[in-house]
């Protein structure tokens, strides 16, 4: 049942992410589906993370006009990596998860800039500094809230299932 709630959360965050004028600060807005997928990967397992990461990435590709599958592949791999990171090396706390999410978002930002702007446009550095990095920073600041939302859904559903 929590998988359905995760999907609804993704849908809600995608809608919030793409609604014009919502959460904008000086023209910068967060990309909310990415931390949601990363949070699911961290608190569930690598397969769930891969699936939700792929779906979140496809959604993000659609709204950001990237080649379909680009962010899907990146988020899928990052979600699996984050999941393993917390299984084998790091304790699952909200602080650790927030920091790892922020790092993953930076990696995604770098790859996005490299493959969508650096190779194709000259004078593209301003896009990195004025659009992509501020958006990534804003998204990283939203990570704790989204992590807590995912954690809340997980705990509520597990309590409801009596486990």
């Amino acid at each position, binding site marked *: 049942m929590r998988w359905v709630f995760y999907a609804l959360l993704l849908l809600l965050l995608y809608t919030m992410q793409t609604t014009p004028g919502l959460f904008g600060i000086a023209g910068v*807005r967060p*990309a909310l589906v990415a931390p949601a997928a990363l949070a699911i990967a961290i608190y569930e397992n690598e397969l769930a993370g*891969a699936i939700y990461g792929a779906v979140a990435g*496809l959604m993000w590709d*659609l709204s950001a006009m*990237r080649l379909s599958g680009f962010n899907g592949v990146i988020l899928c791999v990052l979600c699996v990596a984050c999941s393993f990171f917390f299984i084998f090396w790091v304790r699952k706390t909200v602080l650790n998860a927030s920091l790892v999410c922020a790092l993953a978002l930076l990696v995604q930002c770098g790859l996005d800039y490299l493959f969508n702007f650096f190779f194709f*446009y*000259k004078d593209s550095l301003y896009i990195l500094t004025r659009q992509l990095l501020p*958006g990534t920073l804003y998204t990283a600041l939203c990570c704790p809230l989204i992590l807590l939302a995912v954690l809340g859904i997980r705990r509520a559903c597990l309590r409801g299932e009596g486990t």
Partner: protein
Amino acid sequence: MKDFFKTTRFKVIICIVALLFGFMIQAAYTGTLSSLPSKIIGTVTAPFQAVATTVSGWFGGFFDRLTLADELLDENQELKKEIQELRGQLTDLDRYKEENANYAQQLQIQQAHPEYKMVTASVIGRDASARFYAFTIDKGTSDGIKNQDPVITSDGLVGLVMEAGPNYSTVMTILDPAFKLGVYTSQSRDTGVVSGDTALSKEGQTKLRYLSRTSTAAEGDMVLTSGMGDIAPKDLLIGTIKSVKPEKNGITKYAVLEPVVDVSSVSTVMVLIEH
């Protein structure tokens, strides 16, 4: 961890990644950006985006109000009294006004160009990481929209439809370097190509390229579509020239254009499905 590579989960993950690469190859091969799963996602999420945009419009830029709090507070105090008296009459007025404005825009264009067939659409999605202010509208192939259809307002050209799904479309704006359209200048009748520029797009401006070295185009000239290539009809206004400079190659000139439409904030557009 080594054992993980022998598990079924690992194989499933590899299949998912391979599928995603397949979508990328398919999208690149067809010359579009989206694949079938993306179109499905777009079709499912478009109604939610439309509702969210409407609700968001009611609350009207909450975060902007925070940054302009002082000015707005003073203005708000004065207006509150007046609004209380008018509140009873305003329940549906905003919606009717917007609808009327949309129809008036459409009528104005239709009267000037009876051969145009247009579809009015609302902007329902703007992603923070969308390139060069690209946006999503709430109409698609089921309304007759197809790729490369011009997107306009009563003021002028906004861009071209980049992707058309069943009930949504994504629009590439005139600020995008991938946008290319034949144009001419109003005064000197010089021809050129409007195409976005990454450096100019941060100022909300675009570029008119390939002006001849002897061009007499000057600041203040209007730039209109030439109709070449049959992408957009002739005489759609794009912008006005701010400055004319020689290209680095010395063979041609270019002009910096100020668009007539603010593509970063447009909320209602019309798509020319026949022209």
